[in-house]
């Protein structure tokens, strides 16, 4: 049984009538994801991509047996939708929305923790268990089933790396973005805990970037708990200047905190093999450190 989502996941799409919500519902259905219902206030009774739509999560749960949620609701209302999903016990809640105020994110994360619900994101490409289900906006075809678990702070870089793993014949158990914002639900340590207990995951890839301390925390956890599964990593932003936000709200070096160099050093000191360039990762996973071929 893979982590977070599987073929038994039945999701409610919040914001299903919007452009993004409707478009990605189509792609998720095409991938094989079970979408139980959609929710958009005021649009109850509509059908989107063949999916029945309700005004509230409670109303959707009277008619369906959904157990997870994905949020496409625009930033001004994303907190309310996420709270509604947590309140109804849907788990996990995958928050795709970008641009949610940090204050709102902190409140969502605190409430989810209290209710024992996992939030993935915000500002995440989502979660995919290749061949079974995807709750997210990632292109399904770059992933393939296998036993490498992957967690990342970025979207397209995840696709880039997953594609290179797939081309190298290395499949994945579950891949997810923890989100590019400063405040996220699931972090690297949480994901490492999940992968540790997961029989379908044999090794782990972490894709980090500058800002915050998620990578350092992961390194400490790996070291302190004697993590049994091999972990390899890549950290983006070696050349990033301090004090500048590199696209993601969370990707910023403040003072001397959050540099790529510090993250790479702490990961390496925990025994994690850190790739110099993304294309090295397949070789590191095979336990080889072959020189880069260009």
């Amino acid at each position, binding site marked *: 049984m893979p982590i977070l989502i599987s073929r038994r996941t039945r999701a409610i799409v919040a914001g299903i009538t919007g452009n993004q919500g409707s478009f990605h519902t189509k792609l998720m259905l095409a991938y094989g994801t079970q979408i139980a219902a959609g929710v958009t206030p005021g649009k109850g009774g509509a059908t989107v991509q063949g999916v029945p739509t309700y005004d509230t999560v409670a109303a959707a749960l009277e008619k369906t047996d959904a157990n997870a949620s994905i949020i496409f609701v625009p*930033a*001004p209302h994303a907190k309310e939708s996420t709270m509604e999903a947590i309140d109804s016990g849907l788990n996990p809640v995958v928050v795709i929305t970008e*641009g*949610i*105020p*940090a*204050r709102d994110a*902190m*409140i969502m*994360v*605190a*409430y989810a923790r*209290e209710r024992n619900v996992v939030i993935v994101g915000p500002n995440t*490409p989502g979660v995919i268990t290749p061949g079974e289900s995807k709750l997210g*906006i*990632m*292109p399904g075809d*770059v992933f393939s089933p296998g036993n490498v678990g992957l967690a*990342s*702070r*970025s*979207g*397209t*870089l*995840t*696709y*880039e790396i997953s*594609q290179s793993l797939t081309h190298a014949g290395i499949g994945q158990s579950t891949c997810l973005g923890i989100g*590019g914002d*400063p*405040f996220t639900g699931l972090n690297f340590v949480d994901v490492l805990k999940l992968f540790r207990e997961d029989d379908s995951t044999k090794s782990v890839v972490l*894709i980090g*970037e*500058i800002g*915050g*301390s998620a990578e350092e*925390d992961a390194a400490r956890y790996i070291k302190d708990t004697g993590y049994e599964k091999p972990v390899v990593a*890549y950290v*983006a*932003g*070696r*050349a*990033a*200047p301090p*004090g*500048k*936000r*590199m*696209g*993601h*709200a969370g*990707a910023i070096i403040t*003072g001397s905190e959050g540099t*790529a160099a510090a993250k790479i050093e702490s990961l390496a000191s925990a025994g994690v093999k850190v790739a*110099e*360039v*993304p*294309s090295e990762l397949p070789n590191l996973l095979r336990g080889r450190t072959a020189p*880069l071929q*260009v």
Partner: protein
Amino acid sequence: MKLFEFEAKSLAQNLGIPVPKGAVASNGEEARDAYKRIGGDVVVKAQVLVAGRGKAGGIKFASTSDETRERTNEILGLSIKGERAKKVLIEQKLSTKRELYVSIVQDRANRCQTVLASGQGGIDIEQVARETPERVVRHRLDQIFGMRSFDARDVALRLGYTGQQLNMLTDILSNLYRLSVVYDAELVESNPLVETQDGKFVAADLRVIMDDNSLFRHPEFQERSKEVSGEVTPLEAKARERDLAFVELDGNVGIIGNGAGLVMATIDLVKHFGGNPANFCDVGGGANADHVAAALDVIQSSEKVQLVFINILAGITRCDEVAKGIVEVKKVVGLKKPLVIRMSGTNQEEGRAILKSAGLGSLDKMDEAAKMAATGGL
């Protein structure tokens, strides 16, 4: 978005936070008039968004209206870390007994707001925290309840206050927290918060940084948010107008990519192969032709750029859209720099065909393309 000190103080005053008596002036004559309303010893402070104005000569003292005018003219003529002050804040000088440090920060590690306070204000708090951590009071807030009066009281008590002063400081802390909530502040910082000789507390300095993502809740700041500070280069300002996530770097290889992580990795890779990136430019995970055209247009307008590397991994983005954006720029304004294009993913073949019909080539692998870009497109 950083607020100027005078803006932050005006918001604070409305929430009942004591600030020194003061007035804003944009020139020497206004400063003279302002002095007449304040009187006594005053401080003239440059209103800039960069930190460290004191060391750069942006804070001066005066005791007469003529002195105030002169100090103001001096400050308005300064360049403080590349930023020119358009205004000064003239304030009554306080009779200081003790300088405190107080801030309410968004604490990434603990995923909540945290109050930081110290009896050693007026200096660099990071340095105090590093050298004498026991002198910094930290109090984490429960994000569901926010700051309760006993949270504030705990901080005031640990700063060493009792009785009437404990209650006064508790109120000020509560109101600083309220300021952080009402204005969605990433940071509210008073350094120093002065304890005066007569035992009162006054926010002598105040910094507020608003969360850019919250600006939809603050329409009154919409115009203000477009104002460009000295920390933004002209090229960055131009890119911002076109809705691009853009950071200028000091090299000569222009970089365009989709997705923040991929762009950072692209920059690192170009550097790895010996090149020197000129910028970070993210056209977004779901970029279309217009985004790509805007990015290319901005970057090729920079004189220091000698080559542009476009790295697109299409997922939701489609390669044909990206190709259309590039070809459009070629047709409308012309390509002013050599291009290295890497395009892979959704509709790759269609995209290639569009580029080819415009006489442009593209590569499939990121490493290969980065190496080519780093070595001057050869």
